[in-house]
Structure formats: C-alpha cells, structure tokens
C-alpha cells in the first residue's frame, strides 16, 4: 500500500544555501559580468535583476576523462547507406562524437548564464564602495538625539501640561457626564412652566417639581469642571539624529560642446552615483546643478532629462554651489561632497577663475570633490587648471572617461573604500 504525502506546503527554498555558495565562489567572475552588464544597457533599468554569463570553463568540476586520440569504436543508430568496410571522413572537430556531452539545455557550452535578483545585482554593483572619509565628522561621536513633538499623552509633568487640549477634553467629559440630569432637568422645567401657565403653580405637584429641579441642578453642578482625567500633556520623543548627514552636489555641463554621447556618459556617471548614494546612505541630500553659461539648480528629473545648449562657463556652477552651501548646508553640520562632469571645454578666461573658486571657496568646505572629464580628445585647459588644484588639495580627485566602459572602473576608483589603517 502506498503512502501519499502532500509536500507542497513545506519549504521550497531548500537550495538557497547552495545557490549562495555558488555565487560566493564565483564572486570575481560575477562582478566582472555585472560591470559588463552595466556598460551595456540603459541606466533607467539599472535597478532590476540581470542575466549574467560567466565562462563555463571557470566553473567546471573536473574529473578524469579520456582525451581525443587512441583507437575507439562507437555504436550509432539509424544507419542509412553504410556497409561494413566503408571509410568516411572525420566530421569536423568531432562534434557529437564525444561522450554525448552536448549541453543539455541548448545553451552554448562556453557560457554559463543565469539570473541574479535585483538585490543581488545591486550588491555586486556597489560592493567595496563607500563615500570617502565619511567617518570624519560625526560617525565617531555619540549618537545625538533631538526631542521632537509627537502628539499628546495623558501622562506627563506639569510643565508640559497642554491647557487647550485639557479644556477641550473637559468640555467633552462635562457634556457627556451631565447629559442625563440635564435632560431630566429640561423636562421638569417644561412641566413646571406648563403647570404655572395653567395657574397651578401652588399645587403640591409643582412643589415636587421645584424640589426635583433643585436636586437636578445640584447634580449638574456637581460634575467637576476639570478632572484629572482631562489633563493632556504635550508629548515629546527622542528622535535619533542621523550620525552622518551628507549632501551631494552633482554638477553637469549641458552646454553645446557636450554632444549627445558625452551627455549620455555624464548622465550615466551621475546615475551610478545617485544609485550608490540613495542605497548606501539613508540620510543624504542631493543637489543637482546643471550649467551652460549660467548655472541653475534643478530637480532630479530635469537634471537628467532636459536639454539645453549654449556656451560654457563652468565657474557659474561653482559659484552657485558655493552659494547654496553657504545658505543651506553649513559645513559644520553637513558632510559635503561634489561630483562634476564636463567635457573640459570652457571659456578660456573662466578656467583660472574655476581654479580659484575651488581652492579658495569650495574645497575648504567639502569633504571630497570628484571631477570627471568625458571624452576629451586632449586634456583641456580646465584639466590643467584642475591638475594644479589636485596638487594642492587632497580632497580633490579627477579622472578621465573615454568610453562607456570606463565609467564603472572610474567610478570605483573615485569612490573606493579607503583602507583604514
């Protein structure tokens, strides 16, 4: 007699552990594949899972087997025209003649392809990256809390007594508690008035009503004006202050000299940056500044999608950034980071001005400033000026991106986890 068991509801992820081990073992290859994937597709859908291929020779499990050569006989089915003694040419590279090892799933033998979930994909993508020197300001200090209002409570100390709330509470309670006697009182008074109007005000019945009215009035009056039950206190709770709050400035050149492809690369660089930031730091603000001859602060969507053309005055963006920092992000409270993307094209006279702005006004305020020059044939004037900046300031980093594929390595280079000594 057979026994039937319904296993459908028992756990299904039995292989999850083995899958994780597989991923861990081929981390290097997978990471490379992820990098390839990023350069190959549009950034808007970066946040989704990805099909990954890694060379299957890397993950072979070896066994002892025969190599080609020697003398061997094989039986095949489906003979059509051969008779014994026939001689035939060797089929090219012995395909299909091997140990029947044609890949069972129809996939090429050279690649082992599989899916990564979104979560896994992003993890590989961002591994090892962290904003540099973020620890500096507040990470080391004790977590700060701030008292913030959080509605009302019925317990508290007298200093926090909320008078209006308490009175409101009292009115409601008084109304509710006196509702019965007041209704009776109203009826009694009506009856009395009726008796009096009929000239029967001296009857014992009227007398009784009067007594009752007095009693009822006393009952209504006995409802306390303010009860301890009414008291309401302003409630305050401790809200942890983010230990490191950061603001990231994204500066991008959208001038005429930035052609479509360059813009595209710049966009991707910022998108990577954006993804990275929104993922790694819960409390981080972003400021987007795009510029041609004049700079403008825009929202995220505008930053990536709008098109404008014109000349290039890089300093306009730097000046605007400085302004915003002074206005909204005092550097005592904020870690300030900035990343600038440009093709290096700038009005001749403006580049020295940029250098001075950076060295004198901006760099003293920021933790880190990254500059990427996109697809510049030769390093431009701005690059040379920035090289000077780099030589005098440690927080400044610059890289050149020549092609789409460079984005990821450059990105990693700029934001590599600093080895902590």
């Amino acid at each position: 007699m057979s026994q039937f068991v319904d296993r459908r509801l028992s756990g299904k992820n039995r292989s999850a552990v083995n899958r994780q081990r597989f991923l861990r073992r081929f981390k290097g290859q997978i990471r490379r594949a992820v990098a390839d994937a990023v350069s190959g597709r549009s950034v808007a859908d970066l946040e989704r899972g990805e099909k990954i291929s890694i060379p299957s020779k890397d993950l072979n499990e070896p066994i002892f087997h025969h190599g080609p050569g020697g003398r061997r006989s094989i039986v095949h089915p489906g003979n059509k025209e051969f008779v014994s003694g026939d001689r035939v040419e060797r089929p090219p590279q012995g395909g299909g003649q091997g140990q029947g090892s044609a890949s069972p799933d129809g996939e090429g033998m050279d690649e082992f392809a599989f899916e990564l979930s979104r979560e896994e994909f992003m993890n590989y993508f961002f591994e090892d990256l962290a904003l540099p020197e973020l620890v500096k300001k507040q990470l080391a200090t004790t977590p700060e809390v701030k008292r913030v209002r959080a509605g009302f409570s019925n317990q508290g100390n007298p200093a926090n007594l909320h008078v209006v709330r308490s009175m409101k509470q009292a009115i409601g309670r008084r109304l509710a508690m006196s509702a019965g006697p007041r209704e009776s009182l109203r009826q009694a008074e009506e009856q009395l008035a009726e008796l009096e109007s009929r000239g029967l005000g001296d009857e014992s019945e009227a007398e009784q009503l009067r007594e009752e009215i007095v009693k009822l009035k006393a009952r209504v009056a006995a409802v306390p004006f303010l009860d301890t039950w009414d008291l309401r206190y302003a409630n305050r709770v401790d809200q942890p202050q983010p230990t490191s709050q950061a603001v990231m400035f994204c500066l991008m050149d959208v001038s005429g000299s930035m052609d479509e492809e360059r813009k595209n690369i710049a966009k991707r660089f910022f998108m990577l940056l954006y993804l990275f930031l929104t993922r790694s730091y819960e409390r981080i603000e972003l400021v987007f500044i795009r510029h041609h001859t004049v700079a403008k602060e825009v929202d995220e969507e505008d930053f990536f999608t709008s098109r404008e053309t014109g000349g290039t005055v890089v300093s306009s963006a730097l000046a605007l950034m400085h302004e915003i920092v002074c206005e909204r992000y005092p550097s005592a409270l904020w870690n300030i980071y900035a990343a600038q993307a440009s093709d290096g094209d700038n009005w001749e006279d403006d580049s020295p001005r940029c250098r001075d702005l950076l060295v004198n006004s901006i760099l003293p305020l920021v933790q880190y400033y990254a500059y990427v020059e996109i697809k510049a044939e030769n390093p431009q004037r701005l690059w040379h000026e920035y090289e000077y900046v780099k030589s005098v300031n440690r927080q400044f980093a610059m890289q050149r991106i020549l092609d789409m594929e460079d984005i990821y390595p450059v990105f990693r280079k700029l934001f590599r986890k600093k080895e902590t000594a």
Partner: protein
Amino acid sequence: MSDDHTAESRQYLSQGSEWNFDLLHLYDREIGRVAAHYGLDTYPNQIEVITSEQMIDAYSSVGMPVGYNHWSFGKQFVATQKGYKRGQMGLAYEIVINSSPCIAYLMEENTMTMQALVIAHASYGHNSFFKGNYLFRTWTDAEGILDYLVFARNYVAECEERYGEEAVEEVLDSCHALMNHGVDRYVRPAKLSMAKEKSRQRERAEYLQSQVNDLWRTLPPREAVEESAVERRFPAEPQENLLYFIEKNAPRLESWQREIVRIVRKIAQYFYPQRQTQVMNEGWATFWHYTLLNHLYEEGRLTDGFMMEFLQSHTNVVYQPPFYSRAYGGINPYALGFAMFRDIRRICENPTAEDQRWFPEIAGSDWVQTLDFAMRNFKDESFIAQYLSPRLIREMKLFTVLDDDTEDTLEIAAIHDENGYRQVRQILAEQYNLGHREPNIQVWNVDVYGDRSLTLRHFAHSRRPLGESTTEMLRHIARLWGYDVRIESADESDQAELVAECPV
C-alpha cells in the same frame, strides 16, 4: 479474473485531466493490483506531491532528499531554474529515490495521466528494479540510506562550523573530483546505518589518527632495514579505489577530513549501481509503465483520451533520433532499454527461427519469469551482451564506427547484417562498461622512505590518452595527499611514461 470483476471494471477510473488525492489513491491501487498480477516485488511506496520549485530543488541535489551543502548543487540549481523558467526544458516528470520506503515525487502541475504514468514508472517500475537487481542489492542499503544522508549532512555542517566553510569546501571539491574513482568494484561494501556509522565514526577518527602508520614512521622498524634494500612497494598491490586509499593512508589529513572523504566515497558507492544500470533501469521502468497502463486500458478502466496523452509522452520518451539528426546525442537509454525488454518478451512469446538459433534457452519461455531473471542478474554491459537480438539491431539500424587516430578516415567496422551482429553487440556492450568509459587509474606507489610522493598509474586502453583535466585533477589529489603527486601512463606493453606532476 471473475466475470463480475470485469463488469465492475468497465467503469473508467476518471475522465478529466484534473487530479486529486482520492484519484491518486485510486490509480495507485489499480496500478498496484496489476503490478502484483505480473509479480512485481517492490519496497513500500511513499509518493510525495511537490511543486515545480521543489522539483528543481530535488533535481539539483541529484535527487538526494537530504544533502550536505555545496556550491556545485547551487550551480545545478541555477542552471535548472534558468532552463525551466525560460521554458527551454521541461522538468523531469519524476524523481525516485532508491530507499525503503521508495520515495517518488509527483509534480502538482502534471495532469492525472502524467501522475498515473509516473506512479507506474517510478513507484512500480524503478522500485521493483531497486529491490530486485543484484547490483542494488549488493551495493546499496535502501533502509539505511536516508539515515546516512542525514548523518552526512549534519557532519558536514558541524565541520563547517568548526573549521570554516572554505576548508570544508576545499575537501569536498577534491573529493567530488575523485568520486568516480571512489568505488570498490570487486569488494562487497559494508551496509550503512546511521547508528553504527555514528558510533563508529568517533572510534575510527581516534584510531586512525593515533595509529602510527607506515607513512608516519620516523624510525624504520628493524626488519625494514633489511628490506629497504629490496625496495618494498607500498601499496603492495595497485589500488583502484583512490578515495579509499586516500582516506586510509593520506599522511596529512585530519580526522574530520578523512570522515568527509569517507562520506563522499559512501555516496559515490551508493550511486554506483545507477551508473551501471542506466539502460536496464530506465528500460525496465518504461516497459512496465507501458505494460501496466495498457493492461488497465484493456480492462476498460482508462479512457481513450488518457491513452492518447499517455502514448504521446511515452513516444517522446522512447524516441531515438538517428545519428545524422540534430537532436542526436548518443543512444537514448530509455529507447534502447525499452526496446530490449519488449524484444525479450517477443522472443518468449513469438520466437522466430532466428531467435531460436540465437536464444535457445529463452525462446518460447514464460516472459514474466524471463524478464524477471534478466532484471535481477545483469548490468547494462552484460545485459546487452546477453540479450541484444539481431532483429533489434536491424530495427535500430545499429552500426559501429572505428575511430583510430593513426588513420585519416573513420571505418564503418560492422553494420546490422549477418557478419556484423556479434561485433555490434559486443561493442555496444563495451560502451556501457564503466571500466572502458572512464580511464583506469590506480594507486601505483608511494615513496614511503623518501619524499612521500604518490604515484598514480593510468592503464591506457586502446592507446586512449588522458584528457586535458589531468593537471587540475592532480592538484585536487595533491591537496588531499599533502605531498607531491604524479601520474604516469602505461600502454599495453607496460611501458610507463610520466604524464603530469603536481608538486605541493
């Protein structure tokens, strides 16, 4: 069968394609009844209904219901999942485990017809094969295997906790590489059981580690002083079971590592009969699902629709593409096995003059008994050598190709004609001889008094060389052995030459 039984069984078991547990019970009872009628002897059945996801899980752990964790199972899982998701690959309809009770999995997505097919195929076909075939009876212990797998999983997990996942993974990698060489081909294995295994494991570990074996001896024993002049060989005889040799003799393994080697070896041994009886096992199960369901159909218990669906998947399973087809990937074991068992039945029931000449002892005999005998006493190699008939060779149009690397062209050595039958049959049988398919590699020598290096010898058959994985394999062996490992290849005239070497 009595008349009223026939009248009662004119009723169909079910009409639609939906299944439910009552129907499963009903079909199982009916199939079991017919199986008993044909005298199929089985372990008790445990039939588990699972989802496709669970099927992928089961699939990726080589069907082991419990297994230790290893990345290679994850790789298998990822590959299966991908194939299934993209619809490139149907899942196996069933997985069946050689255990008692015999566990078979049914997928919930299957139709009633497929469930019945799987029950007949796995729970009665494979199951009776597991219970009857001499290899399974000798090599596996159906009662003990589940317990042993639990023991193995827990032991490996414990080692991971104590020595770190990576250390364990390294040992497992190396052991897996040698899995095909972890089998005793001639010695009968001891039975596995959880309780024994557990209690013995501790003793063994302590004993092995404490024992001063030859490899650790620093002071040569007195007689060895005289003997060393004559250069004593260790091991005295070449050893074919590399994993066993390593487990017992590797100088630098810790006791937990030895135990892991042992676990992999035991599991390899458990799967060894399956690798030797692919054609027979699948052929047997296919033959019986075909016979049992046809029997039920003739009794009038299955609808025509049921039979159409059943025959369609049956035909797909036993299709043998010809060698020039794009779908050709070698001989389909289902096709060959099924055809052979049917052919044996035909020889018993309707022998021709040719059959009388080739199979005098079975022609005209009782087919149920003859089949039972064939199932019990053969493995693929001997089964084919014994029973492949000229008629089947003609039907399948089998021919042999001789590939000799000293010749420019391939030779068609034999075809399906009077002169070729015996040669075709012999070569096909050899093709299923594991000893020919896998290189014959043996432990040849250990330099006991020198650098402790291990020498393996490959006995080349028909001049066939080792593949390109050999160097990598040596690294795995060297990891387990702990000292230099080299492999030499000997041809028929016993001339050995060094193939590869792996210094530690």
